[in-house]
């Protein structure tokens, strides 16, 4: 318990330092360049009490969830297939490489042409960047399954389904979890970036409005909310998936 209290104390110290440096720096600039901490805190409180706060957050969350859902589903299937069948991976590798190395801004512009100004480009870029991360993690995971356990399963005549269920899937759980942590974190940033560039709704839309009204305090307040959202969703995913058996993450 003592150790935990000390840990939180050190973390609080880190946050305090960050805020202190920011506050000091804000003394040297106009509030239009770098607003002071109390002003941003006030804006944050005001934002949350606005009637359209939850609909705005909900819109972004929906896009994020759709993009992540599609990306994780497609990525998991491809990752398993690639891991189980290396020849298939040779065929799929260029596809993954393209998804991985084309910058998200290119995808945004392309998706805008394909889908229009309706929010789907956000879903698309989140999915497009989620797929390669999940595929690479899972295919590595499948190939990293303990060969001794596979031999054991073979000698005890496990069916393919049984091997998948009791050996392969539980073995790749840590790989899947780390992929999830990465894509959830990255997804938030991409969803909001997509919104800024292709819509006027959601958190990205609110940031655009703040930019047009020259309200850096609102932009920083939204950034805070994004950090919080990212942290909470990552912890939530971790908590949901580390329940049954095995070590927590």
């Amino acid at each position, binding site marked *: 318990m003592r150790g935990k209290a000390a840990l939180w104390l050190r973390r609080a110290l880190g946050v305090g330092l960050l805020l202190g440096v920011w506050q000091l720096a804000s003394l040297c600039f106009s509030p239009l360049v770098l607003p002071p901490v109390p002003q941003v805190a006030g804006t944050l409180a005001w934002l949350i009490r606005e009637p359209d706060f939850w609909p705005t957050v909900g819109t972004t969350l929906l896009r994020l969830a759709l993009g992540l859902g599609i990306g994780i589903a497609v990525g998991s299937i491809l990752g398993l297939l690639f891991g189980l069948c290396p020849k298939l991976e040779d065929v799929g590798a260029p596809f993954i490489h393209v998804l991985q190395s084309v910058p998200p801004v290119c995808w945004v512009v392309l998706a805008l042409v394909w889908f229009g100004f309706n929010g789907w480009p956000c879903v698309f870029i989140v999915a497009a960047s989620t797929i390669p991360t999940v595929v690479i993690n899972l295919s590595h995971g499948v190939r990293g399954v303990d060969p*001794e*356990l596979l*031999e*054991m399963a*073979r*000698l*005890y005549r*496990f069916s393919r389904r*049984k091997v998948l269920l*009791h*050996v392969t899937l*539980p073995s790749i*759980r840590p790989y899947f979890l780390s992929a999830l942590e990465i894509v959830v974190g990255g997804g938030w940033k991409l969803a909001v970036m997509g919104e800024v560039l292709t819509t006027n709704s959601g958190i990205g839309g609110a940031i655009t409005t703040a930019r047009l009204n020259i309200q850096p305090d609102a932009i920083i307040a939204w950034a805070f909310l994004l950090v919080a959202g990212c942290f909470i969703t990552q912890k939530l995913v971790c908590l949901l998936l580390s329940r049954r*058996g*095995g070590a927590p993450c």
Partner: protein
Amino acid sequence: MLRLSGICKRFEDLPVLSNLSLTLSRGEIVALIGPSGCGKTTLLNIISGLTAPDAGTVEGADGRLSYMFQSARLLPWRTVEENIRLVREEAPAGEVRSLITAVGLEGFERYYPGQLSGGMARRCALARAFHFGGEIFLMDEPFQGLDYGIRMEMLSMLLSIWQRERPGVLFVTHEIDEALTVATRIAVLAPRPTAICQWFDLPGPEGRDASAPELARLRQEIIRRITG
């Protein structure tokens, strides 16, 4: 009956097994004694079909075959009970229970392998092998690294479970006492490239006292053969 004839195996330039032949019938416990690194595990892998021999034939290994590996190889994410039950799911639950009791793991059914000691994990693996059943049991130094008391206890457990179904057991060890206690026959292996250099027949019944005076001469001979 398991029949190996003329088994040869080399790994790149290293000849491991050379023209090795042996037979194993139901109801026999054959102990293989040999220096470490002499290819005993390779031999068991060839019998079980995990490794293909370069030459020679394996007959009679296509039925049910249980293999107890040198390490326990339990699924870390399944409990003791699940690990045992999984190899023959259609069996009634009572069978698994009675095996767990037979290997002295009652009370630990819901434990995960990571929560067990090495000896307990081996006992779980032994129960799993017996639950799977079959005409042939391969055991690769199953009690290595366990202390004397547990080893003797596990040997008597092995015997009591073996007496129910009387499968053919091929048992690799480098403990002469283990072999003297349970084996019906002992094969001493020559160092690489390995072949059987001498067979010893043991008087029944199994479960002998390895320190009995009538086994002293046999033990001397085996030691002479190994160190020879």
